[in-house]
């Protein structure tokens, strides 16, 4: 029995004019790290709020840990851990006080489940008498995670835990999540950062309330339909503009240092010749492996 199961969930706002979640179905296995990957407005927060029983769906059913989200909301509320988006804890309570508070709210003590949060708490322990409001973004995250874990939930919902935090703290956060897997806690995470998708066991790509794909990151990449090339020259903008005019071009867009391009009938030699004719110097053009972001863009363009 999957830890979390959604069947055809629908959620609208504003008397049905805003379709936040359209017919979403997915299942999450116990102990998985499952990522909900999509930009703002995709419906991630709405889905999480329905699963944590804070919102009622318009239609469809879902179960968390075997409990139905509408009827059995009390049981779900007793057992899950939840970290809402942009969660800031109690700013004027200290680290210790916040942790103690959340432990008590769930009818346990910090001592009881300390080994669960030990690895994370150690990093902020020396600030334990500091007020939460005076912590850095990365430290607040760690504290919030501890507070969500302290009662040893069976399922953990983390809504955009890394948004607005610098790349270094983001990396560290995901490392902490991976170590939690060993505790057999099912973790659902939502994020707009595509590069974090590879840290998950399975992911669902979501945009404007609809699921684009559900699979392991590797499979999604493997299923990318075109041959993808990375192209580089001295001026990205000129390069892109030229590629756009190429009659063989299927898709091209910037991708950091390189541009990524796919062609109708790929021919490295032909492409290079075309660019050279356009005055683009020092072209580097070679096959590359797509990333989740490439897959997402491909879905969006369809």
């Amino acid at each position, binding site marked *: 029995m999957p830890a979390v199961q959604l069947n055809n969930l629908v959620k609208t706002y504003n008397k049905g004019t805003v379709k936040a979640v359209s017919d979403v179905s997915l299942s999450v296995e116990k102990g998985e790290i499952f990522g909900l990957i999509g930009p703002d407005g995709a419906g991630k927060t709405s889905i999480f709020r329905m699963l944590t029983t804070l919102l009622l769906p318009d239609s469809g059913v879902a179960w968390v840990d075997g409990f139905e989200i509408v009827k059995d909301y009390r049981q779900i509320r007793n057992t899950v851990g939840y970290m809402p988006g942009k969660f800031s804890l109690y700013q004027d309570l200290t680290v210790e006080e916040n942790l103690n508070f959340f432990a008590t709210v769930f009818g346990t003590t910090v001592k009881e489940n300390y080994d669960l949060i030990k690895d994370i708490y150690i990093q902020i322990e020396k600030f334990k008498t500091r007020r939460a409001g005076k*912590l*850095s973004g990365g430290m607040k995250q760690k504290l919030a995670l501890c507070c969500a874990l302290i009662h040893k939930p069976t399922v953990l919902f983390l809504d955009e835990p890394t948004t607005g935090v610098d790349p270094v703290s983001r990396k560290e956060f995901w490392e902490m999540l991976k170590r939690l897997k060993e505790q057999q806690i099912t973790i659902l995470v939502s994020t707009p950062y595509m590069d974090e998708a590879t840290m998950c066991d399975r992911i669902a790509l979501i945009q404007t309330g609809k699921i684009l794909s559900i699979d392991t990151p590797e499979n999604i990449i493997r299923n990318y339909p075109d041959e993808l090339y990375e192209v580089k020259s001295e001026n*990205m903008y000129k390069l892109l503009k030229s590629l756009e005019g190429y009659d063989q071009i299927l898709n091209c867009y910037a991708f950091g*240092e390189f541009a990524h391009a796919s062609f109708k009938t790929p021919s490295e030699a032909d492409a290079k010749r075309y660019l050279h004719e356009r005055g683009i110097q020092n072209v580097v053009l070679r096959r590359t492996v797509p990333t989740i972001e490439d897959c997402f863009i491909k879905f*969006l363009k369809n």
Partner: protein
Amino acid sequence: MNTVIQTDKLTKRFGDFIAANEITLQVHQGEIFGFLGANGAGKTTTMRMLCGLSTPTSGTATIAGFDVYRETEKIKRNIGYMSQKFSLYDDLTVMENIRFFGGIYGLSDQELKDKSQALVKRLGLEKESNKLVSSLPLGWKQKLSFSVAILHDPAIVFLDEPTGGVDPLTRRQFWNLIYEAAERGLTVFVTTHYMDEAEYCNRISIMVDGKVEALDSPANLKKNFGLNSMDDVFYQLARGAKRGD
């Protein structure tokens, strides 16, 4: 080549705390300059000084030729600004927003009329021009926001994490706008947490604990650190940071 931003040992102190420590940098006209750093590193403080919103404690700086101590009003009139937190008024229509901000920047009625029509056409928003901004998808809002920020043809535009939370396609469309504007001679000063966007810049600087710890083109930085990606460069520099926000 014109220097649009020139700073020399620009510093901002709050009591004992040095938020920005002797920032020295130059930004040339038409450059896309990436301003990176962890939260709490001092990016916002520095940007506020450059925008004329905060008086430095010491050091000098000129923005678009205007002195940051004595000519802040002239600076404000010659720059554009866009951030995630502040952009457009949700309860006004697209056209109303354009007219409002254009008016604030001192555009004449005729200029306003011409520019707003051109802008709406370029963004493909003709059908939406009388719709409330709140009804637009986030990506369109961002693009509109940027265009409004440069409506008055400023010398330089400051962008504070403009693409946070936006889908990958829209992000790239946004950067297309930035490229086009840079081609026309606009200087772009942008902060971001997306390391791939760092690659789109001509040069970038990375702030750690209030100081500029690196300033060069992405290619040179990677070469000097012997690393493959901007991600790794950033990680290397920011990892040892003592400060958070």
